[in-house]
C-alpha cells in the first residue's frame, strides 16, 4: 500500500462531503451508488451528494491516497463489472479518525458551554 508522508492534521477540517464519504467507506469497500446511499442513510437524508460532487471528491481522495480503488470485486457474479469499488486506505482511516476527534472536541466544547446537555440522546434512541 502506498504510504503518505503527509500529516493527517493538514487535511483538516474535512468538508462534510469528504468526511461522509470516508465514513461510508469505513465499514468496507463500496461503489459510487452504494456510497451515495450510505451517506443518505447515515445522515438521515440531511446530506445528499450529487453524482458530479461525489466523483469529484472520489478523484481528490484517490489523488491524496485517502481511498484506493480495489481490484478484487466483492461479488463479481452478481454485479456490473463496469462498477469500480473504493476502500479506505490506512492513511484515509487516520485522516477520518483525526476529523472525528476534531468534531468530538467541538462537541465537548459545546457541552462545556452548555449548548448541549451532558447526556445527549444517541441517534435512533428517541
Amino acid at each position, binding site marked *: 500500500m502506498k504510504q503518505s508522508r503527509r500529516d493527517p492534521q*493538514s*487535511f483538516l477540517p474535512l468538508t462534510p462531503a469528504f468526511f461522509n464519504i470516508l465514513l461510508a467507506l469505513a465499514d468496507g469497500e463500496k461503489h459510487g*451508488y452504494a456510497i451515495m446511499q450510505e451517506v443518505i442513510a447515515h445522515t438521515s437524508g440531511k446530506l445528499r451528494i*450529487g453524482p*458530479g*460532487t461525489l466523483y*469529484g471528491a472520489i478523484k*481528490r481522495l484517490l489523488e491524496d491516497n485517502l481511498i484506493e480503488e480495489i481490484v478484487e470485486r466483492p461479488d463479481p457474479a452478481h454485479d456490473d463489472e*463496469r462498477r469500480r469499488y473504493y476502500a479506505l486506505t490506512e492513511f484515509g482511516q487516520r485522516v477520518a479518525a483525526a476529523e472525528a476527534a476534531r468534531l468530538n472536541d467541538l462537541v465537548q466544547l459545546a457541552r462545556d458551554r452548555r449548548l448541549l446537555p451532558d447526556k445527549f440522546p444517541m441517534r435512533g434512541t428517541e
Partner: protein
Amino acid sequence: MKKSTLRARQVFTALLHLYPAGFRRDYAGELTLLFVDMYRAASAQGMRALVSLWLAVLPDLLSSALRERIRTMFNVKWSSVPIQKWGGLASFLVGVAFIVAPLIYLLGNLRDAMGAFAYSVADLLYGPVWAASLVTMVFTLRERIGDRAPRRMSLALLAAVLAAATMVLVACIRSANRNYHIIHPELHLENNQAILIVWTTLVAGVSAAGWHFLGWCLVLIGSAGWTSRLLPRVLSVLYLLAGITSMFVYLLPANEGLVGMLGVVISIWQGILLLKAGAGETQMPEKIASQPY
C-alpha cells in the same frame, strides 16, 4: 432498458461534455451508471421524484464541472514541459522589460521623430508585456513549488495578477496622457502645472501600488522557494530582498531602480532554470501533496 431511461441517459451523457476530457475519460462511465441507478430509483417513485432528481443533478453537474475545469486549468503538473518553457520565456521577457522600458523613459525624447513611438514601445513593454510575462512566470513557478507551499504560491499568483493589472493601468494612463498631448498641441498642456502634478502623482501613485503588490509576490515566492528548497538558496534570498525593497517603493521611490536591477538578475536566473527544467535537465520532485481541502 426503458426508453425514458435511455433518453435520460443520453441527455446525461451529453451533459458530461461539460467536464474536462481527462475527468470524462476516468469517470464518465461510472457517473452514467450511477445516474441510471438514481434514475431507475426515482422513476419507480413517480414523476415528482424524477423532477426532483433532475433539479438536483443539473446544478450539481454544472457546479462540479466548473470546479473540475478550474482545477484542470490551475493544476497542470510540473512534469508538463511546455508550460516550463513558456515560463522560462516569460521570465526573460520580464528581464527585457525591466531593462529596455526604463532606458527609454530615461533617455527618450518625445520631440524626436521616433520619440512617441519609442515611448509607446516602452509602455507596451512595461505594461501588457511585463504583466503577462510576470503572471505566466509566477503561474509556472506555482506549478513547481505549489505542491510544497500551496497557500503561499496561490497568494503569490494573486499578488502577481494585482501587480500586473496595476502596471497595465499605469501604461494606459501614461499612453493616454501622451497621446492627448500630441493630439492637442494647441492646449499647451505641458505648461499646465496643475495637470502635470495630477498626472505625475497619479502615475507615481498607481505604479507604487504595482511595486507594492510585486513586492508581496516576490517575498512569497522567496519564502516558498527557501522552505521548499526547490529554488537555489541565493535566488530565494534575492527574491526576498527584491520583494521587501519593492514593497516600500511607495515610501522610498528612489529604490525603484534597485528593484529593477534585482528584477533583471532574478528574471534571467529564473528563466534559465525554467528553460533547463523544460529541457528535462532538472529532475522534478515527486508530487508529495496536493492542495489541502
